[in-house]
């Protein structure tokens, strides 16, 4: 892959150490929030942040192989519908729903992956863009199952206790720690080494013994399965699913989160998620203005700051250090 924007500036930490300690501290602080702030709105925002972070991190995993999917929300939607149908139609428990939410998009990704992952960057973007649109149309047209354009309402909470926003906050925080932790661990393992090698030089990686296509398909399927779980968590949280929640616009939002935060390390999508969800709170009531600002940020980041906010932060930190040093 030759896209300069994806060429890494910094190496993801291969071993734990300091990043692990920072992550543990962040999680500890997040776990204390409901004990200090009982505000319903803040807790709901927290759940949204965690769910979006899972989705964005799962897209990051795929992006690290050098492929930007513009259809990621479609897989999130498939997960959401799969879970909701498993729980509401089959009467199975939420855990079975989550399993279905992982397996369904994962299988679909395994089926199309070997075909679409042969394509180079720009064609992959186009195919996933169209694929996402097709999936959305299936949600609209397959009325007997998906409820058509209206979607499905009255989705129950995973268990009665999760009607409490604080409980859902912990559920999504737990899922976030588990899934984002899994992705971090994966990227820091030998698999992550292979992923980076494939993105930086597919030809060289292949000739060093890395099974390129199998690796890409596996990672694509994992990323799609994980975003499916995020879809399930979202569906049972906002209590309805409908096609517009999983359209190309939503896929684009997940890309925006990654681009703004930075695509080179897993920290990028997490920072991007925060920025993406917190900024609108500051501009509440000015939905259009938010979108305009995001649009302009996207232009600026793509034109001048391919490493995103994380790179900007890194540069600022360097500058401060240099000042302090001299």
């Amino acid at each position: 892959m030759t896209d300069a924007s994806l060429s890494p500036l910094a190496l993801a930490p291969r071993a734990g150490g300091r990043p692990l300690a920072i992550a543990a501290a962040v999680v500890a602080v997040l776990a204390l929030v409901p004990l200090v702030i009982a505000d319903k709105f803040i807790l709901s925002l927290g759940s949204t942040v965690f769910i979006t972070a899972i989705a964005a991190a799962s897209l990051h995993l795929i992006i690290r192989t050098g492929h930007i999917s513009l259809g990621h929300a479609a897989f999130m939607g498939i997960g959401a519908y799969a879970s909701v149908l498993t729980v509401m139609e089959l009467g199975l428990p939420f855990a079975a729903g989550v399993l279905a939410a992982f397996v369904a998009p994962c299988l679909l990704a395994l089926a199309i992956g070997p075909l679409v992952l042969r394509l180079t960057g720009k064609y992959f973007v186009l195919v996933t863009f169209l694929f996402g649109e097709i999936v959305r149309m299936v949600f609209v047209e397959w009325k007997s199952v998906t409820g058509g354009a209206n979607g499905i309402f009255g989705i129950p909470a995973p268990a009665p206790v999760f009607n409490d926003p604080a409980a859902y906050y912990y559920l999504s925080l737990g899922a976030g720690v588990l899934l984002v932790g899994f992705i971090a661990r994966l990227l820091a393992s030998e698999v992550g080494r292979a992923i980076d090698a494939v993105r930086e030089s597919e030809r060289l990686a292949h000739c060093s013994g890395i099974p390129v296509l199998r690796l890409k398909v596996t990672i694509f399927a994992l990323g799609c399965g994980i975003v499916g779980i995020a879809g399930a968590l979202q569906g049972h949280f906002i209590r309805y699913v409908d096609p517009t929640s999983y359209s190309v616009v939503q896929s684009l939002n997940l890309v925006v989160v990654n681009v703004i935060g930075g695509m080179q390390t897993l920290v990028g999508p997490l920072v991007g998620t925060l920025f993406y969800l917190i900024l609108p709170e500051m501009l509440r009531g000015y939905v259009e203005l938010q979108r305009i600002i995001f649009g302009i940020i996207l232009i600026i980041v793509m034109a001048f700051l391919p490493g995103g906010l994380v790179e900007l932060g890194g540069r600022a930190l360097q500058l401060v250090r240099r000042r302090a040093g001299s």
Partner: protein
Amino acid sequence: MTALLSVTSLHRQFGGLTAVRDLSFDVAEGEILGVIGPNGAGKTTAINLVSGVIPPTSGRVEFRGEDVTGLPPHRLVGRGIVRTFQSTTVYGDRTVRENGMRGAYLGLYPGFFATLFDTAHARRMRAEATAVVDELLDWLGLTEVAEDKAGSLPYGHQKTLGMIIALASRPRLIMLDEPVAGLGGGDADHVRDTIKRVRGRGITVIVIDHNMRFMSGLCDRVLVMHQGARLAVGTPQQVLADPAVIEAYLGKRHAALAGH
């Protein structure tokens, strides 16, 4: 003694163009085989076919007596065939050592769950691979720059690193595509030494170049390619004396020179 690599009637077409036609040759274990020929003769394509980068249109490749025709590159690396690229290919944004580690990938990867949980087995494999890479860096003199970014190395060092990446998989056969292209005379001599030392480790070598002088001092045998086909094969002396080679490749001027 049977051949380590045996290529039979290899053929590759690109649309209307036949890049490699009816190519057959053997390489014995421990040999250095040179492949020589003008630009566009099909040398790189031949290596691409043997290393699995592109599949042949027809023909057969045997390695250690087994049919490996059309296997993808990563499978061939597993069997002991590696290659380098004509244009220097390293991971420019990574350290020299990380480049080596990526080359050692097959010896490094303990399985999905083992690496995910960093089991004792995974750690042992990593320690072994690290030892292999460190030894190679030391052997070819890159230890000093092990933590530098590969992209910041001088051109000659990058070529060496390309070879280290290939050697890190502990191959039986290494194929080098124009390892001295773009290097000055002193560096070229150094690479020639290096290739001989690689063979000294029991690794069989196929090396491409179009400079006969460089090849004569290095190879046991030379395969001459012309317009995709094999023109001659033999010791450098035999090949240099072959009238077909003199006529087609070295040209009229050399033919006259060889005459006396």
